[in-house]
């Protein structure tokens, strides 16, 4: 017992608790990004490389709306809608012609989109990071820290958006269309579901969710043109670890990976903590290629 209690005493419990909270908050945002990505993959076999750029674009539109109207909540709603429309336009112009081709071509096309969007943002907004003012400035004390309430609000809001979306998928007529198309594209078409428009709508919804998470995340760090890349890489990891096209799995995986990264950054540099999630991805691919959070296939 002696060595165990020594280890327990040596652990920085206050830091661990703070990092747990941090991990859950980033995990919820990541879940919001990744659920759009996994849905887009599940329904149309498109690996959306540009998802991070939609996140970034959402944050920038949030910055612009904030600057003109001053209201954070208006920025959140408007940016979600605008990016959803942009997403629909992108899907119609670039992904629809690729329907039925090798899924790998969609990676290339969306990679092209991400390059264009990223450089467009750099051109329009310059390299200096912009700041979104947080709408709730209250803090509560947690050990030696004044922890901002806003972070808790982010986690709750992300959870609410994902929950609302889940209810929509489960009970809404259009949600049922989406699930039907995921399960069997040809059969859904035969039953009169306009499959191409379902694809467009799903891409728009995914884009809107990425934009919402961009606006929510904006106040925590600066908004800049390269912020999307980090997120899209982590969202890829989450989507693979959670099981491709599996919504529940990717939410669990988001929180799992964010917690791991948060704990790792107690001991190593945050830039190196990313490697932990890379390693989780590789181990998952080696031992459970269908994903960590899905039942073992029989």
């Amino acid at each position, binding site marked *: 017992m002696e060595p165990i209690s020594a280890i327990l005493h040596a652990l920085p419990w206050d830091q661990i608790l703070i990092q747990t909270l941090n991990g859950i908050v980033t995990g919820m945002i990541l879940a919001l990004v990744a659920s759009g990505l996994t849905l887009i993959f599940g329904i149309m076999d498109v690996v959306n490389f540009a998802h991070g750029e939609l996140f970034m674009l959402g944050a920038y539109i949030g910055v612009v709306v904030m600057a003109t109207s001053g209201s954070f909540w208006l920025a959140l709603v408007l940016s979600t809608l605008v990016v959803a429309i942009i997403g629909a336009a992108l899907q119609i112009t670039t992904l629809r012609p*690729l329907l039925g081709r090798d899924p790998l071509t969609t990676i290339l096309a969306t990679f092209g*989109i991400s390059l*264009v969007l990223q450089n*467009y943002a*750099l*051109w329009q907004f310059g390299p200096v990071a912009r700041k979104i003012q947080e709408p709730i400035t209250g803090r509560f004390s947690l050990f030696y820290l004044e922890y901002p309430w806003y972070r808790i609000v982010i986690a709750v809001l992300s959870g609410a958006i994902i929950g609302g979306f889940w209810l929509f998928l489960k009970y809404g007529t259009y949600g049922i269309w989406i699930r039907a198309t995921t399960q069997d594209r040809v059969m859904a078409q035969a039953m009169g579901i306009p499959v191409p428009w379902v694809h467009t709508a799903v891409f728009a919804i995914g884009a809107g969710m990425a934009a919402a998470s961009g606006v929510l995340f904006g106040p925590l760090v600066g908004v800049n043109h390269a912020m999307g890349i980090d997120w899209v890489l982590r969202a890829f990891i989450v989507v693979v670890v959670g099981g491709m096209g599996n919504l529940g799995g990717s939410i669990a995986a988001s929180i799992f990976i964010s917690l791991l990264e948060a704990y790792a950054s107690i001991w190593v540099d945050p830039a190196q903590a990313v490697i932990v999630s*890379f390693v989780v991805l590789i181990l998952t691919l080696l031992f459970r290629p269908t994903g960590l959070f899905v039942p073992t296939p029989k």
Partner: protein
Amino acid sequence: MSKRSSYIYWTGFCVIVALLIVEPFVLPEFWRRFVTEILIWGLLAMSSDILIGYTGMVSFGHSAFFGLGMYGAAAALLSVAPPNLWLAILYGLIGAAAVALFVAYFSTRLRDIYFAITTLIFSQIFYVIIFTWTEVTGGENGLTFSRPALAIPGLFSLPFTTSTLHWFVLAVVTASYLILRRITQSPFGMVLQSIRENEARTRAIGYAVERYKIVAVMLSGLFAGLAGVLYAIQNRFAAPDFVYFLVSGEAVIFNVMGGIGTLVGPIVGAAFYLLLREGFSRFFTEFYLIPVGIIFIAMIIFMPQGLLGFMRRWLNQ
């Protein structure tokens, strides 16, 4: 292969190589460097064509091999007193091969997009390591070093000028092309192509598909590392930016633009891309990727074969 067709092919090959040999006497300094750069990026793209075009695996991790080639060359040039060209190449190839073995072992168990994502993540691992391990790699600033002399011990020793460097790079790239062409036409290359066409059937016939894939990734990694060494010698620095996955993305863009599965196509694609970049950066400065990206997307949709795709069969004869 008909005799006449092969005659035309080799005549064309000789004419192009001859043009590239005399090019330094004609073109001004800027364009001389530019052509050399095209050749180096072309070699990188050609190396990834082995995977994309011949084995049917899209690698988004070639920046790791390229970058490790650069850092390997840097290690040799910084540690040995009079910098030695051959040692730099040796170290670069060892670095790239080590990484390629590691990546190949894990990633070849996966297919399609999973392979693409895994190679991408692997290259990011190496990027993070190189970026944060400042004592050894110089971190964000990278490493700078001086160019070695082009020397064969006991025979001659020339300093690298823009022209001699061009000829050296041309010799390496031409040799690599001939070797890769030979490999793709060998029985080994045929197995790779049959993996591309139908992996399950290839396995059923009795080929150890995984082993072939590992060798393909390593081969591809070696040539990408060679390109990295050449680039390090040309620019006299190694920087983490070249390990970043955007470089791998560029290699894939070169392939798609030029036409996959042709070996020459990726070089043409690199030339096309770099010319577009040069042209557009006159008007758009550093935002050239906006028009270039749009052209790239349009080419994926309307021209999936790439610029040289229509000659694919002829070039592979």
